[in-house]
């Protein structure tokens, strides 16, 4: 067992609903695991079990070598958790709230850690205002500060950027990226760009089961758009026909600006062949765009089938 977080055969049943269905995975230091899936796939439930909030129906979770069920306090001490929606005590100010968490977490250099999280997350301007008067972005940052206060080895965040505006999302992502080097981070999300921006690995779950467990790169390669070629120019009919008749082209999709996207047959590349066609029609200057693959497409293909 080398991982900081080890999940073995986790099952959680509510009534006759299998919220989590035999989930197993391991996450090590330096990894940022993105936990993806449609709403209701069991992401939050899994996180609640890892953090010791919910007991599993069966299976076990180990955090930093401590089994969560038998040594909950030890496990909780080495993890920081941002629950969904970043709840906090609304009548308290961030300063009081962080001090309360510090009273319980008792980090070594208390004053230093408080100053650090407050500085890192830019909480100074709102430090003495009640939490329920703060904007969503600030509330999320208070939640992050609380999770980071004791410099935990494992950081678990349930939809850390949900409901934030693009700038706030970016701030939170930058922050997570900075933390990532020597920590084990698990985030859940249904925002796919987030996976590309911060995750080193992605697990897609649906109906409580793991569908894939790969790097975002590998995931993208599953897309039918992987190596697809987009020709960004107005093309005359003979060129269009010639491109469509190429041997390795599986599907031709029209683009909004009269251009085309050519989707290759599995395992084929099109760039060379497309350039040849364009050369023959004296269209040397036409820009080509080779796609790396689209995560939303992969996500849809994988999770759609399960629901049908």
């Amino acid at each position, binding site marked *: 067992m080398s991982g900081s977080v080890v999940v073995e055969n986790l099952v959680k049943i509510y009534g006759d609903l299998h919220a989590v269905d035999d989930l197993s995975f391991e996450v090590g230091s330096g990894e940022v695991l993105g936990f993806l899936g449609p709403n209701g796939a069991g992401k939050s439930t899994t996180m609640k079990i890892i*953090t010791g*909030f919910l007991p599993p129906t069966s299976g076990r979770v180990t955090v930093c070598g401590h089994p969560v069920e038998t040594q909950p306090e030890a496990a*909780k001490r080495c993890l920081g958790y941002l629950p969904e929606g970043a*709840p*906090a*005590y609304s009548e308290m100010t961030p300063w009081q709230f962080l001090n309360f968490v510090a009273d*319980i977490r*008792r980090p070594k250099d208390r004053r230093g850690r408080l100053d650090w999280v407050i500085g890192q997350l830019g909480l100074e301007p709102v430090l003495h205002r009640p939490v329920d008067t703060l904007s969503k972005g600030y509330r999320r940052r208070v939640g992050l500060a609380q999770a980071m206060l004791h410099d935990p080895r494992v950081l678990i965040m349930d939809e850390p950027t949900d409901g934030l505006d693009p700038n706030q999302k970016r701030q939170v992502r930058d922050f997570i990226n900075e933390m990532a080097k020597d920590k084990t981070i698990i985030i859940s999300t249904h925002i796919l760009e987030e996976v590309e921006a911060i995750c080193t690995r992605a697990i897609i779950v649906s109906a409580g089961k793991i569908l894939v467990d790969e790097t975002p790169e590998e995931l993208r390669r599953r897309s039918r758009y992987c190596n697809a070629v987009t020709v960004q120019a107005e093309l005359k009919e003979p060129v269009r026909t010639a491109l469509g008749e190429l041997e390795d082209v599986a599907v031709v999709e029209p683009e909004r600006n009269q251009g085309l996207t050519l989707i290759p047959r599995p395992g084929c590349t099109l760039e060379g062949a497309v350039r040849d066609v364009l050369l023959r029609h004296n269209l040397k200057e036409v820009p080509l765009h080779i796609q790396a693959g689209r995560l939303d497409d992969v996500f849809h293909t994988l999770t759609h089938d399960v629901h049908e």
Partner: protein
Amino acid sequence: MNNLIAILRRELVGYFQTPVAYVFIMIFLLLSGTLSFYLGNFYEREQADLGAFFTFHPWLYLFLVPAISMRLWAEERKTGSIELLMTLPVTVPQAVLGKFLAAWIFTGIALFLTFPLWLTVNYLGDPDNGIILGAYLGSFLMAGGFMAIGACISATTRNQVVAFILSLVTCFLFLLSGFPLVLDFFQLWLPQPVVDAIASLSFLTHFSSINKGVIDLRDLSYFVILISVWLYANMIVVRARKAA
């Protein structure tokens, strides 16, 4: 222990950051004063004691304690902060005791602030201060009993109004369990020893003897056991229904 104190302090400070504390203390002082002077005939009795004052405490607590206890857990459920609290390295007993003690100490503060009445009887006459102290202790213990019931019920729901009403009804049954209103109902279908046992659970019987100045170990232990049992139930409820 440190965790318990941290939770206790957070709760207690929380009361004074919202109008809850001030409204509660004002109402408690107003009602306890008015009731003892008007309904309790504080002056007309011409006795230098606080009997007129303490007689109304069970009825005051019946409404006011559930108003404090209703938010203890229901609010944490509603806002989701329970998820935060229970994923900190605290145990369920620490959380349950910390919250309960904070609420209990808070009612203790309200009770303490009635001391001008005690000064008044000492100014007007020569009361038996031992009896008064005993009655204060009894009243405080009884408030703890109501609070433990309310805390446990608050943990069963995420709706504070539901918690308030259920606590009030439960407290009312405990208050009156020595009275025909409750006993007649049980007498129909339960054997006499069980009915007697139910009768002995009454807050009023135990409190009225303390109020008269008879500090019986049985009455004290009654409240201590009652509080313990309800807090234990509170822990079970929190463990079982954290996420519900």
